[in-house]
């Protein structure tokens, strides 16, 4: 936790990832080539972070020399990772923007099933918020406009309702298995 002054730079975000409630990766991007260069190290890191954060909804943690801000929603966990000296509020701005934008394009259904059904939209949202570690946009409204994504639920409402119910039940089924 040493405090070496931060080199002024736009490269704020080291990594961003979304995990489901079993700790499986749905999406993850690492922007610092030196940080966890191999897939094995990345997944290991994600597992470690998940284990430390899934129980307590604490918003912020410090692990393996990195500052991690996070948020959970139903059966999903969103993480934004920065260096130990990074301004925590900047990371929070990214996390909030990610969550708000997804919430809008998914019509507030920020849960695993809906994210998977609209994974293309989620990829595009992340791409609009961060580019190679630089915060590209922090205003969710702007992000949604730029992505201009149509949630699948619009076209087949009946299906979505059906999926929503079954998805939920599946979710619960998994939870009870976990317990």
């Amino acid at each position, binding site marked *: 936790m040493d405090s070496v002054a931060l080199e*002024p730079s736009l490269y704020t975000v080291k990594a961003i990832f979304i995990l489901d409630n079993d700790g499986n990766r749905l999406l*993850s991007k690492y922007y610092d080539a030196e940080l966890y260069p191999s897939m094995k190290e990345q997944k290991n890191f994600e597992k470690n972070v998940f284990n430390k954060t899934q129980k307590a909804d604490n918003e*912020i943690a410090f692990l393996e020399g990195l500052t991690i801000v996070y948020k959970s929603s139903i059966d999903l966990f969103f993480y934004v990772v920065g260096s130990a000296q990074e301004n925590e509020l*900047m990371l*929070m701005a990214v996390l909030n923007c990610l969550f708000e934008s997804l919430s809008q394009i998914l019509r507030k259904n920020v849960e695993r*099933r809906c994210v*998977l059904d609209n994974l293309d939209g989620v990829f595009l949202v992340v791409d609009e918020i961060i580019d190679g570690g630089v*915060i*590209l946009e922090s205003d969710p409204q702007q992000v949604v406009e730029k992505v201009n994504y149509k949630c699948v639920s619009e076209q087949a409402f009946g299906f979505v309702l059906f999926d929503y119910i079954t998805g939920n039940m599946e979710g619960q089924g998994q939870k009870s298995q976990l317990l």
Partner: protein
Amino acid sequence: MIKKFDKKDEEAGSGSNPFQHLEKSAVLQEARIFNETPINPRRCLHILTKIIYLLNQGEHFGTTEATEAFFAMTRLFQSNDQTLRRMCYLTIKEMANISEDVIIVTSSLTKDMTGKEDVYRGPAIRALCRITDTTMLQAIERYMKQAIVDKVPSVSSSALVSSLHMVKMSYDVVKRWVNEAQEAASSDNIMVQYHALGLLYHLRKNDRLAVSKMLNKFTKSGLKSPFAYCMLIRIASKLLEETEGGHDSPLFDFIESCLRNKHEMVVYEAASAIVHMPNCTARELAPAVSVLQLFCSSPKAALRYAAVRTLNKVAMKHPSAVTACNLDLENLITDSNRSIATLAITTLLKTGSESSVDRLMKQISSFVSEISDEFKVVVVQAISALCQKYPRKHSVMMNFLSNMLRDDGGFEYKRAIVDCIISIIEDNPESKETGLAHLCEFIEDCEHTVLATKILHLLGKEGPRTPSPSKYIRFIFNRVVLESEAVRAAAVSALAKFGAQNDDLLPSVLVLMQRCMMDSDDEVRDRATFYMNVLQQKQKALNAAYIFNGLSVSIPGLEKSLHQYTLEPSEKPFDMKTVPLATAPITEQKTEIAPVATSKLPEKLAPSRQDIYQEQLAAIPEFQALGPLFKSSEPVQLTEAETEYVVRCIKHTFVGHMVFQFDCTNTLNDQLLQRVLVQMEPSEAYEVVQHVAAQSLPYSQPGSCYTLVRLPEDDPTAVSCTFSCAMKYLVRDCDPNTGEPDDDGYDDEYVLEDLEVTVADHIQKVLKPNFSAAWEEVGDEFEKEETFALASVRTLDEAVGNIISFLGMQPCERSDKVPENKNSHILFLAGVFRGGHDVLVRARLALADGVTMQVTVRSVDENVVDVILASVG
């Protein structure tokens, strides 16, 4: 339609995740529909998503298959479906490194980038820059310049950020876009402003003047983006640090003014910047601390965390500045976020009073198992600091530490605890037994070799001197039975120390040693055999030399000398006295008689300062016959700080000579000095033999010249001498701008301050881990004793400090620390005199009106004893 695919996947048994059991080959097979006409956007979109998903999961794509899929994907540019196009950009970026010939899409992307559809332009720029290399960059340079100043914010931002990414690759090209970036910086859009500032700084960061101008401009005009403000604060504090600007500089004022910004992010950044500035006064810290104090009660966990973490930093240097926040910190102790609670408690431990320690420790032990290793280390460090501050609290701490030692945790965490316990043991003799007992318990089940060997070494050092040494033997011998080679070897060394110090334990130790001689590992057997034989001699002197006090030579020096010896075979046996001594008091692990199987220790021995000097001097032909370098002093300044020439001297002592190294710097930019040497006039019978001049000394480039002096052989007690010094040189005036010197010059002279050689220059510090054994080893053949009165000294601490710095010897047995409220003290000093004679000093100090000192000196050489006593008197 897409739903149908999902249904199909589900029926195929993929559970609730439509992507779960994707087969790469099946997906690539599906990708063939990219070639179908007409393009079905929905299906293609779904397949692209699958490909990106697979890449994201870490699936490996071969170059051929990736290239094939990539080329098929390029056909999708014919469709006008927005989302599909955007996914194509993403695929391009993801595949840029795995597919071949990605530049094939350049023209499509250039078209999108300059087209009418604003939604495409930004993302197309970013994708294009991702696949562009230096040669192609020239071709799109014109478009990039236009894009940077485009009035659509997303286009401008994309161009700026992509330019920043490309600075690493083609700095020279991107540098030409500075004017455009400058224009973008005055944009109304907050993100464009931020990105432009970032790019501008990146292009100019090596030009301090330009950075300063830029800061000046933006701090005056004011920015809208909070991100840009954070960036500005970082640039400003970096510039302040580099220029060592005072805190009255406008930059500091700017940072301070940001404490009143309306965005919390900016306020926090400013507070953090002020806190991290070196040498801030309490008054300058106060406004930063008070905003952090406000943040402590924020409903946002991240903000509370940020605030308390920064306050924790402040508390390390300025505990008093944080006391005002104690109440707010108390409220955070019960914070549901354990990281915040831990930081709050450790901060309070630093700022609080002795009475609150017990309560805080109880509080923290209630949740220590819930926090991550990183924070546990923070807690241990806080405890360690606390023990130094309140030594009386050691029993509470020790209990707490031993509990922590029993919990699970990684290496760093355990090492922090062990280090902390060891430092408590060394500072508080009363805590020694409990501490050793806790450590013994720990090594019974310790998976870290480094820690086990460290503790065994400590047991060997401290155990034999406790009232009941026998109880440690069991713990040590258990290691011999159960552990890996390195630990077994360390255990054998520890056992030997018990045998050497405690006569009644010797027979049992010998029995145990005998068993160790049957060990399967060479090192363990060798050590056991060696110690066995030494112990059987039952001679105190042998024990002292080979068991307690190991080698005091520098390890790299020994390696070099031995290598040299094998290169030039001779009849003479190798002489240990030719090996240079280790300069720094050697740390514990290196005092092992044979080096531990060091393969597991990560750090390699770095050559010490003296080894570097040895190399440098040996490279000068005049000094090659002098033998090994015995000691190098710290540099002594021979000029005032701000004079024309700056000269400092390092005294190198050899067996019969001294070499004075003068490091000279010429601070006049209109002069070139040549043939620089320092003339020395000794006050005693020292003889100046030779000068080695520095040939040329241009402006601000340091150079060294040397003077060789022979020490008087007939009078070995003449150890101190004063030299009057003068620097002589040839001056050639030169043009300050070009450095071009005039053709002719003139001789000149510059008088330096006098240089003293004292007894300390003839003695090298050596740490004797067991002083009394060494004392016996040297014996009383040449012992002399004298009593002195130090009238001018008022405290024992001061007396101890004076003696150590005067004699330049190593204090042993931590006798340099005088316990509080004592009227008498014994100081043990050890060293080696020039020529390789051990010398030991015992000084009994008594405090009355002044300090009375009884000095006893022992050495193997009578002259040395006389020298020391004469110089003290």
